[in-house]
């Protein structure tokens, strides 16, 4: 327990706002798996560092034997106990764990398992060992209770879990109806949070990498503004983030600041280009052989100046040539 390393926690679960978990299990192996999942969750949600017992693994081959007694042993539940007694014992165990410092959770649970096994007589000494192994590894509080439809609810305040009876399942089902909205919100927040983390991480890039990134982003923004072309999803996301930050009066990345300052000029240049393109199209319309083509070009120009795909080969070739010509002319026009 001398390990002082920051315990690993799940960014995903945190991001999704998970503060409880329900684990329906059926059958003894599933129960063992449920204990494993409970343990993993306890760790993932900041319950305890796995380092302490990282060398130990759940023994799957003994899961059947162990699972039928482990969970009971941990909190001292016996087969004859009523539901009320079970609940009481779970609550008592939770109380102990809640009072102990985080680092002590593992040993306390382990002791509970061993202690329970020791007190249960000779028959369960081997089962007690399994209990200690499993619980030692997995750090969880599990009450088997009726096997079907058992739910496990996490209590983040105490970094512990407890199985709760079937009636809770109804709550879950009712709440499912609210899921859609809730999830949309959570997902959005989560995504936004991850993106902002990525953004912050970029600040720590080496200078040359940062400079290159700035250059690439600036150029992409300018190109998109100039040609109306798609920036690509990743760049568009970054663009939108900066736009939002700018809107909120925050400090944007340098490329965005530079682009924003020049944006108006770029838009003006584009307008001039579009105008020129229309004028060229008009000029072409004097040539009768291009008459039908002209209207297409005008439409194209009005939609942002990109060449329309066309089944007419001549038009296609012509229009490409024409747009190349305009691109070349653009710098002169903007002066």
């Amino acid at each position, binding site marked *: 327990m001398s390990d002082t390393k920051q315990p690993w926690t*799940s960014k*995903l679960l945190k991001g999704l706002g998970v503060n409880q978990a329900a*684990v329906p299990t059926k059958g003894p192996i*599933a129960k063992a798996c449920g204990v494993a999942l409970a343990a993993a969750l306890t760790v993932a949600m900041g319950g305890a560092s796995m380092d302490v017992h*990282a060398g130990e693994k759940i023994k799957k081959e003994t899961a059947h034997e162990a699972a039928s007694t482990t969970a009971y042993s941990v909190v001292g539940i016996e087969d004859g106990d009523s539901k009320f007694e079970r609940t009481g014992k779970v609550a008592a165990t939770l109380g102990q764990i809640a009072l102990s410092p985080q680092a002590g959770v593992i040993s306390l649970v382990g002791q509970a398992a061993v202690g329970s096994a020791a007190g249960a007589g000779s028959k369960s000494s081997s089962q007690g060992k399994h209990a200690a192994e499993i619980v030692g590894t997995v750090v969880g509080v599990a009450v088997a209770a009726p096997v079907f439809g058992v739910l496990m609810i996490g209590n983040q305040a105490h970094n512990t879990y407890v199985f709760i009876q079937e009636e809770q399942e109804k709550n879950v089902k009712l*709440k499912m109806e609210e899921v*859609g909205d*809730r999830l949309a919100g*959570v997902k959005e927040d989560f995504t936004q949070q991850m993106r902002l983390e990525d953004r912050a991480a970029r600040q720590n890039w080496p200078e040359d990498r940062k400079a290159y990134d700035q250059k690439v982003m600036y150029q992409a923004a300018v190109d998109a503004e100039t040609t109306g072309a798609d920036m690509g999803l990743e760049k568009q996301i970054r663009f939108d983030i900066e736009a939002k930050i700018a809107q909120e009066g925050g400090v944007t990345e340098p490329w965005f600041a530079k682009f924003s300052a020049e944006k108006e000029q770029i838009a003006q240049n584009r307008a001039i280009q579009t105008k020129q393109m229309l004028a060229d199209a008009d000029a072409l319309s004097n040539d009768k052989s291009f008459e039908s083509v002209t209207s297409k070009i005008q439409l194209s120009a009005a939609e942002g100046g990109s060449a329309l795909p066309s089944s007419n080969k001549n038009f296609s070739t012509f229009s490409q040539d024409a747009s190349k010509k305009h691109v070349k002319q653009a710098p002169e026009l903007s002066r």
Partner: protein
Amino acid sequence: MTIELHMNALGSYALGLGMNDKVPVCLLLSHDSVSVGGEAAISAEYYQLEGSDLRISGPNGVVVLKEIEQACIDAVEAQLPLVVIDPATEREVLVTRLEDPSSDIYRE
């Protein structure tokens, strides 16, 4: 490409629901909460529901959980993501539902 298939019969895995104030927000699986295929699960890319079976696919194989609970099916239908965690190796992965079955590349 040979795709390893890990079948977990009913009763040999634990699939949970992650909730925020009693509202489910994701499905939950840990590396060791399946009898077989933990390694495939922790590196999965997407999942699908086939009848009442959950099929979790990725480059390290396919994990099938037979006959998942109705509450979990509801979660799948609500498009909740699946979070697979492995605290022992400090890994975690967000697995989303594959909408178009024909784009499943991990199928023979």
